[in-house]
C-alpha cells in the first residue's frame, strides 16, 4: 500500500516543495507536516460556543482553536470537565489538569444526560477508524464483529456525541482503508443511508458538517448527504485524494485550496504538542 498508515503521521511537507509552494507563498515560511495542516484546518472550524472534544486529534485541534482565534471556546470532555483550559492537550480525557482548570466538573452521567443529550453543545469533535460515504463512523471493529481483523476500542461517547451535538466535525487521516464505501460497523451515525435518516432515527443534531483530513476537507452535499471534496490542502491533488478514498468521491464545483498554516497557528500548535518547528 502506498497510503500512509493511519497511525503514522505523514512526513513533513517542506515549504517550497511542489506540495505546498502554491499556497504557502512566502519563501522561508515554516515547513509543516500534513498532520499539522489537518489540525490547523480543523481548529479553524471551531469559531466559538461549546465543543464536546474527543481524545487525540480532536483534542489537539480544539485546544489550538482556543489558543488562537477562539479564546472563548468552551471545551467539554466526557470525563465531566466543562470549560477546561489545559496548558497542554491531555493524553487522556481525564487528566488532572482538565479538572483543575475547568469552570465546573460534573459526574459522567451528568455530562451525558444534562449537557450532551439535550443538544446544548455546539460542536461534537470526533475521530474515526473508518468513515463512509455518508459520514458514518466506525471505531468498533475492522472485519466482522465476531471474528474481527482488528478489535478497536469501541464507542465511548461517540454515538451520542454524533447524535446530539448541534453539528459534528470529524478529523481523520485519509486512506482507502479509512475512507470506505461502507463502514464495517456503524459506531456513530453520520447520515445513515442518506437523506432523512437522521430525522427518522430521532437524532436531533444536524450531523457531520465537515470532515477534515490530512489531504483536504469534505462536506456533505446538502441534498444527497454524500461527502464531497470541497477543499484541497496545499500541494495535494484531486487524484491523490480520490486514490485515498474507497468510493467514487465527488468533487465540489468550486473546489478551493486550504490556506496553509500561518506562523502564529504553527507556533501555537507546536507549543501545544511540544514539537520543535
Amino acid at each position, binding site marked *: 500500500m502506498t497510503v500512509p498508515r493511519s*497511525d503514522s503521521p505523514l512526513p513533513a511537507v517542506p515549504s517550497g516543495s511542489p506540495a505546498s509552494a502554491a499556497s504557502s507563498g512566502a519563501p522561508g515560511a515554516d515547513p509543516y507536516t500534513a498532520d499539522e495542516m489537518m489540525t490547523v484546518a480543523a481548529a479553524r472550524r471551531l469559531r466559538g460556543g461549546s465543543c464536546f472534544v474527543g*481524545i*487525540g486529534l480532536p483534542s489537539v485541534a480544539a485546544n489550538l482553536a482556543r489558543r488562537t482565534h477562539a479564546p472563548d471556546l468552551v471545551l467539554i470532555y*466526557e*470525563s*465531566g*470537565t466543562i470549560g477546561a483550559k489545559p496548558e497542554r492537550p*491531555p*493524553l*487522556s*480525557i*481525564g*487528566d*488532572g489538569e*482538565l*479538572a*483543575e482548570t475547568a469552570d465546573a*466538573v460534573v*459526574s*459522567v*452521567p451528568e455530562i*451525558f*444526560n444534562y449537557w*450532551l*443529550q439535550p443538544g446544548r453543545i455546539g460542536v461534537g469533535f470526533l475521530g474515526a477508524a473508518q468513515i463512509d460515504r455518508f459520514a458514518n463512523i466506525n471505531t*468498533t471493529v475492522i472485519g466482522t*464483529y465476531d*471474528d*474481527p481483523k*482488528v*478489535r*478497536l*476500542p*469501541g*464507542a*465511548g*461517547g*461517540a*454515538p*451520542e456525541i454524533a*447524535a*446530539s451535538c448541534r453539528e459534528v466535525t470529524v478529523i481523520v487521516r485519509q486512506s482507502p482503508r479509512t475512507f470506505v464505501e461502507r463502514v464495517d*460497523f*456503524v*459506531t*456513530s*451515525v453520520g447520515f*445513515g443511508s442518506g437523506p432523512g*435518516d*437522521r430525522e427518522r*432515527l*430521532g*437524532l*436531533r443534531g444536524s450531523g457531520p458538517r465537515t470532515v477534515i483530513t490530512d489531504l483536504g476537507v469534505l462536506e456533505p452535499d446538502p441534498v444527497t448527504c454524500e461527502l464531497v471534496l470541497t477543499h484541497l490542502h496545499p500541494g495535494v491533488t484531486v487524484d491523490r485524494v480520490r486514490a485515498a478514498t474507497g468510493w467514487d468521491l465527488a468533487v465540489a464545483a468550486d473546489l478551493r485550496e486550504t490556506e496553509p498554516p500561518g506562523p502564529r497557528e504553527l507556533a501555537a500548535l507546536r507549543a501545544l504538542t511540544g514539537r520543535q518547528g
Partner: protein
Amino acid sequence: MATVVPLAEAVGNLVRDGDSVALEGFTHLIPYAAGHEIIRQGRRDLVLIRMTPDLIYDQLIGMGCARRLVFSWGGNPGVGSLHRFRDAVQNHWPAPLEIEEHSHAGIANAYVAGASGLPFAVLRGYRGTDLPSRTPNIKPITCPFTGEELTAVPAINPDVAIVHAQRADRHGNVQLWGITGVQKEAVLAARRSLVTVEEIVEELQPRPGAVVLPEWAITHVSEAPGGSHPSYSAGYSVRDNGFYRAWDGIARDRDTFLAWMDENVLTRKAGR
C-alpha cells in the same frame, strides 16, 4: 456499615469466582491495587464491568480472571490498543472473552438505574448504530406521552463495585474529588462494595468538588496508598503517562506480559 479491613481481606471477603465486578474510576482514581489483589487471589470467570477498561482490565483479562467484559471503550487512552484485550477477543487467549458492548452514555445510565433501584434507564442513544444488533439488551422504548421512540438499557447491579478514593475517616465515610466519574453510581448500584483510599484520616474536611459516600452505603474500606498508580489520585499523585506508554510494549507480547505480571504483581503478594 463499612468496616475498615486490609485490602487482601476485603477482596477475599467480597469477590468470588463468577461474580460480576465493576472497578470504576474514569481515567482518574482507577483501583489498580484492588485489581492486582483480585489477580493474586486467582479469581476466575468474572464478569468484568467498566466504562473504560484500561490497563487494569488488560491485566485481569490477560491473567485469565474474566469470562465476560461489559464495557463502552476499551483502549489505552492516548496511546492505542489494549493488546491483552485484543488477544482475548481475536485469539481467545488465554481464554475466550464474551463481550457486551455499550456506549458511555448507555453504561452511565445503566449504573444510574442500578443506583436508583430501577430496572432500566431511558436515553437518546444507540439509534441507527450497529450496537443494538450486537448487544441484545439495548431495546427501544416508547414515550407514553409523546409516542417518541427512545432507547432503554437494563440497570447494572454488580455483585461487587470497587473504587479508589482519596480519603476515608475511621468510620469508613469516604471522600473523593476531582474527576468523580461514575463511582458513586457504581457503589450505590452494587450489592457489595470496596473503596480503597490513599489514606485514612481522623476527620474528613469539606473540599470543593468532593463527593462523600457515607459509611453505611459501603461494605469495606481498605487503605491502599498509591493504589491508583499508574492512574492518579488528585492531590496525591499524578498520572504516570510514561507507564501508560510503556504498557504498549509490555502487553504486546504474551511472554513479556506474563513476566511483567509475575514480577510486578504476583510476587509482590508477600510484601503487602
